[in-house]
């Protein structure tokens, strides 16, 4: 089911909050940070920035 942007952001927020609750991630975040990440995930998908994201992280390493 394709859903609109606002709903998507809320669902992504719920997903990553649930995953963080069970301790999935190395980088821990606050609730506010998770909201920012949810929005950013949508931006990454919408603007096809995933490769850029990986390249930037690789460059820091």
């Amino acid at each position, binding site marked *: 089911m394709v859903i609109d942007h606002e709903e998507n952001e809320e*669902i992504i927020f719920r*997903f990553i909050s649930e995953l963080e609750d069970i301790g999935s*991630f190395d980088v821990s975040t606050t609730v506010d*940070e998770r909201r920012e990440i949810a929005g950013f995930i949508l931006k990454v998908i919408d603007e096809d920035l995933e490769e850029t994201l990986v390249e930037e*992280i690789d460059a820091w390493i």
Partner: protein
Amino acid sequence: MTHMNKTKLYEATFERLTALKSYKLISVKKRKLRVTERGFNFLKHDNKWYYLGKILLTDKYRRTQHPDVFLACYGEFVTLPYESRASIKKFILSGSGDEDGDLSEEDFTTYREFITNVARRCGKADSIVERVCNPALGNTIVGTIAPMDLPVEELSQIIAEFDALEEFFLTSDPIKADLDVNSEGVKTLVIENMLELHLEDVIRRNFHQLFPDLEIVDKNQHYRTRDGTYIDIFCKHKQDDKYTVIELKRDKSPSSALIQLLDYMNQIMKEFNTDKVTGILVCKEMDRRTRSALCAIQSNMPKGSSISAIEFNLKMEYSCM
């Protein structure tokens, strides 16, 4: 709204996006985000640990070449006291453990005892057991939980379910699937007592009965074509080495599945420089348009190539998740 520094934002986003896609809670196609049925089920499910653990173990189970060792590993792990599980975790997380100063002699001994006990359970050599246990318990994908981090109750429950499935597949009746051909020449595959989630598993495990002329060549992992797409099951004919692409659709087959199969066949033709490729679409039910398109294609395939469809019925008498 906070503003994270760029490094943290990027790293945290990468981790979470990878996890969402690895668990297949979302799918992304052509810049469109879609929440999968699994994703909605995850949000609704009361026990997230169990739900994710089941996804994780199913995925690992599908890829293991030693399912008996895989199950014995978890079977032994959940019987151990907390301290022993912690020592094993520590050992696995440290790699071989050779250069880890924090690793005690006791951690090493506990780990070795664990491997010996698993080997005894399944009657395999320690070297094989070690090769299976480490990836089975550990984690390879960023942002996903490791099976050894699952609460032991959930892990026990999942293993009991896998044990039940394994018993079903490996004991009593050797013929688990029957192939019928109806008046239109369409094969019907009837498989009882299976999880829908395990369609690919069932087909791979019963492969020799279902497709006696074929052998799988993808080493139980989805074959990645040069275009970056993945083939569900990639195999070839035993007699003439002709490649065969199998596309699985759990739900009613849309005509797009046929196009997808043709695309894979074409990619294999180019990649292996051959014009003899067979395509098989395994689906629950074909709609009229797909059936009609299939008939048209069948009569116009290049010499040596063919395309066919198998419809299956599932009787969901065993279900979990």
